[in-house]
């Protein structure tokens, strides 16, 4: 087989092979959550669980008919939260928050917390300033 033919074959094959997406989480998004079911929930915090590999925030959401649902919202791991400036005081019980996320595929009252803000849109906590991060680009050649 000529090199050119092989090259065309190489291009064709590498195009059709499904390459893994960068799996940024410790599990894949699509395995648990439904990208076709975005949810926006506003409710009051009932519990913040600092648990690995993901923290969970539980909120009571009042439905239009007056009944209340307790939703579990997946958040980042505790270590990442700490680096982001999140503290134990950041999310006290009864704090009302607004969550944008995607609902679990199995239909449970569970969603990933893609974005969490206070109802007026303000962010929940102030980011870390990454103290120690290089400001002077130490790799610069002498």
């Amino acid at each position, binding site marked *: 087989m000529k090199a050119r033919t092989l*090259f065309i074959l190489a291009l064709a094959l590498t195009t*059709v092979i499904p390459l893994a*997406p960068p799996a940024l989480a410790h599990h894949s998004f699509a395995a648990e959550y439904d990208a076709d079911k975005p949810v926006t929930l506003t409710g009051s915090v009932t519990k913040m669980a600092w648990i690995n590999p993901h923290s969970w925030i539980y909120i009571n959401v009042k439905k239009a008919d007056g009944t209340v649902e307790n939703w579990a919202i997946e958040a980042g*791991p*505790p270590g990442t939260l700490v680096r982001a400036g999140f503290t134990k005081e950041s999310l006290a019980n009864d704090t009302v928050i607004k969550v944008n996320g995607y609902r679990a595929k199995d239909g449970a009252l569970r969603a990933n*917390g*893609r974005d969490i803000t206070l109802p007026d849109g303000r962010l929940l906590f102030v980011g870390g300033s990454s103290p120690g991060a*290089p400001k002077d680009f130490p*790799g610069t050649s002498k």
Partner: protein
Amino acid sequence: MRPKDSISYAAAIVAAGLLATAPSRLSAQASQTAPKSSENEECRGNGCAASPDAPVAESDAGAPAKPYDWKASFKEYKVGKVPRLADGHPDMQGIWSRTTLVPMERPRNQDKKEIDAATAAKLENEAQQKQFDLRTEPTDTPPGEKTTDAYNTFWRDGYWFKVPMSSLRTSQVVDPPNGRLPPLTLAARVRQNRAAELDNRRATSYEDRPMSSRCIQRPGTPGPAFNGSGPGGQESTLEIIQGTDTVLVRGESLVSQVIYMDARPRPAADVHLQLGSARGHWEGDTLIVEYTNFSGADGGRRHLTARYKLLDANHLLFGYTSDDPGARTKPFSVEFVLWKLTDQEQLVEYACHEGNVGLEFTLSAARAKDREEAADEGK
């Protein structure tokens, strides 16, 4: 996946693997469509430094390479005031971040080894803006089956702090000199594609889930070699503790490694360890760690040398040379700068098994899909 698809798929990965290891011109051409660094096994699951996804502007072919000289290469980094322990060795103890915007591999349209500080600052700002944009993208965009890029961006490295260009280098890979990783071996490519196939199909058991989902292993994280992690990563820190006869490198995620400094003998050749057997010594102010006795495919033939050099109180140069005939067709070397988290009192434990409900929920999601499909077929 239907049986027929499986056969085509297997044929495709074997053929692609063969092509990836093909020599000369063909290899260079095929590599233009090779996975981006973010899809390489080294950084999967950890967030990757900026990807070299720019269009091709030059050939990989260059002048014959000189052997990698780590001493000469390390000398190119500025060294400031270095804190020391009572025994005179550099004091590297503390919590270090391996987040960096320096790409694992050099972008193909980049022929320089370094960029200037103004460009670096611009890239840092752009990278953080990209994280902001991901969070606020409209939720009604066609999401597709796979994922949304915004998944948990809000919580990750690079949103709440700017991931720095921790050096001005254009790649973490310093050898081969073109800044790009040598191709995967056929066996490694087949393994990688098999893992991707399992990961992407509907889960049938915890056993077909990736090692990371099972809280067993995170490729690319400390233990024993590790790479810089770009925006969107997590578990990106490690702690170094120096004792009299040992140095401990404690990764945030899952593993710690004990480096013995007392010249004790290595295990017998038939002892194979997941993290290898680490023996360290000082060469001047550089800690050199030689690893052998690895487990895994061709683990017995795998050899790794890691190097740590403190540049000043808050910057630590890390490098390694990996000779892993079971994974890459040639040895390669990496260098990047870690930076100290000066406001962290302790490494926050990443006890992955503590509440790993992800496995349960992944399986319950898959069974829910099964039921949906069965109901549709019954209509």
